[in-house]
C-alpha cells in the first residue's frame, strides 16, 4: 500500500505536464469576446460618408453583417484591407467602424484603396469600440440578422479565419442556426 502511495507524485507530475503541454502554442493574449451570444451594444453615431445621418444598432439588423473595426493609424488594418476588398467582391456585407480616427484621413484612405464597406460608422471617440470590447484594432465581428454577436476575430481577417471560423458560422446562420 505504501509502495502504491509513492507513485502519487508521478501521477501528479504527469497531470502537470499535460496541463503545461496543452498550453504550448496557444496565444495567451487572445481573448474570446464577452459579447458572443448577446446583442450589439447600443450606440448613436454618424456615418462617415453622410455625417448628418445617425445610425444605431437597428441599422445592423435584418442581414448577416461583418462589422470591421479599423483605423488609418493601424498598420495591420492596411494589411487586412485587400482581403476585405476580396470578400466584398464576393458579396459579403461588410460594415466598417472607423475607430478613434480622423474622418478626413478615413475618407482619403477609402478613396485611395477602394471601398469594401456598405457604409462606415464614424466612431471618433471610440465609444462603440469600447462597448464592443475592442482592445486592439483591427477586429471583426460577425453579427446575425437579429443583431446578435456570433463571433469576434482579433487581428487581421485572413483566409484561414474566414474558412475555418466565419464562413461556417455564416452558413449556419443562413440555415436558421
Amino acid at each position, binding site marked *: 500500500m505504501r509502495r502504491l502511495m509513492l507513485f502519487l507524485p508521478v501521477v501528479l507530475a504527469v497531470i502537470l505536464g499535460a496541463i503545461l503541454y496543452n498550453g504550448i502554442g496557444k*496565444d495567451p*493574449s*487572445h*481573448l*474570446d*469576446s*464577452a*459579447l458572443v451570444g448577446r446583442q450589439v*451594444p447600443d450606440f448613436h453615431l454618424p456615418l462617415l460618408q453622410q455625417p448628418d445621418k445617425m445610425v444605431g444598432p437597428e441599422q445592423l439588423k435584418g442581414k448577416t453583417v461583418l462589422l470591421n473595426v479599423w483605423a488609418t493609424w493601424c*498598420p*495591420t488594418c492596411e494589411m487586412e484591407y485587400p482581403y476585405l476588398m476580396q470578400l466584398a467582391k464576393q458579396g459579403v456585407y461588410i460594415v466598417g467602424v472607423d475607430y*478613434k480616427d480622423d474622418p478626413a484621413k478615413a475618407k482619403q484612405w477609402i478613396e485611395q484603396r477602394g471601398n469594401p464597406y456598405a457604409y462606415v460608422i464614424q466612431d471618433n471617440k*471610440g465609444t462603440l469600440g*469600447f*462597448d*464592443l*470590447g*475592442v*482592445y*486592439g*484594432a483591427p477586429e471583426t465581428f460577425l453579427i446575425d440578422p437579429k443583431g446578435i454577436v456570433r463571433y469576434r476575430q*482579433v*487581428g*487581421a481577417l*485572413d483566409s*484561414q479565419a474566414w474558412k475555418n471560423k466565419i464562413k461556417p458560422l455564416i452558413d449556419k446562420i443562413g440555415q436558421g442556426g
Partner: protein
Amino acid sequence: MRWWISLFLCCWALTAQATVDPYQFDTPAKLARYEHLTDILRCPKCQDENIRNSGAPIAADMRAKVAAMIRDGATDQQVIDALVSRFGEFVLYKPRLERRTWLLWYGPFVVGVIGLLVVWVLAMRGRRLAHERDREGRLSAEERERLRQLLDEDSRTS
C-alpha cells in the same frame, strides 16, 4: 502567424513602465476606490499589467470609464461588471468564486488540512510507540514487525 499580429497590436505599448494618469475626485474615498479598482483590473492586451500602470490606449480608455462611473455614483461591483461584460473575465485579476474556481480557492487549503492530519497521526503514533516501549521495556509489536522487515530487506540487498 498569430504571434506577430499580437506584436503589431502591441506596437504602441512598448514598455512595461508605469503610466501616470492623474484623476481628480471630490472625495478621498472615491480616489481610493479608483486606485483600488484600476489596481485589480487587467489590461486586456498588455503582458500582465493592471490598467492603473499600463501605457496602452485601451487601458487609458478603461481608466476613463472607471473614473466616470465612480463620479456617477456606481458601486465597485457595477464598475467591475461593466468592464467584464465588455472585455470578459480575463480583465479581472481576482477570480470570481464559482464552481470552476473552487479548486483554486479551496484546493491548497484542503491539502493543508490533510497535511496537518497526517502530521497529527504521525505525532500520535510516535507517542503511542514511546509509551509501548516504556511499558514493555523492549520492542513494541510494531517495532518487532519492522525489525523483521528490515532484516528481510537487508538479507536481500547486502
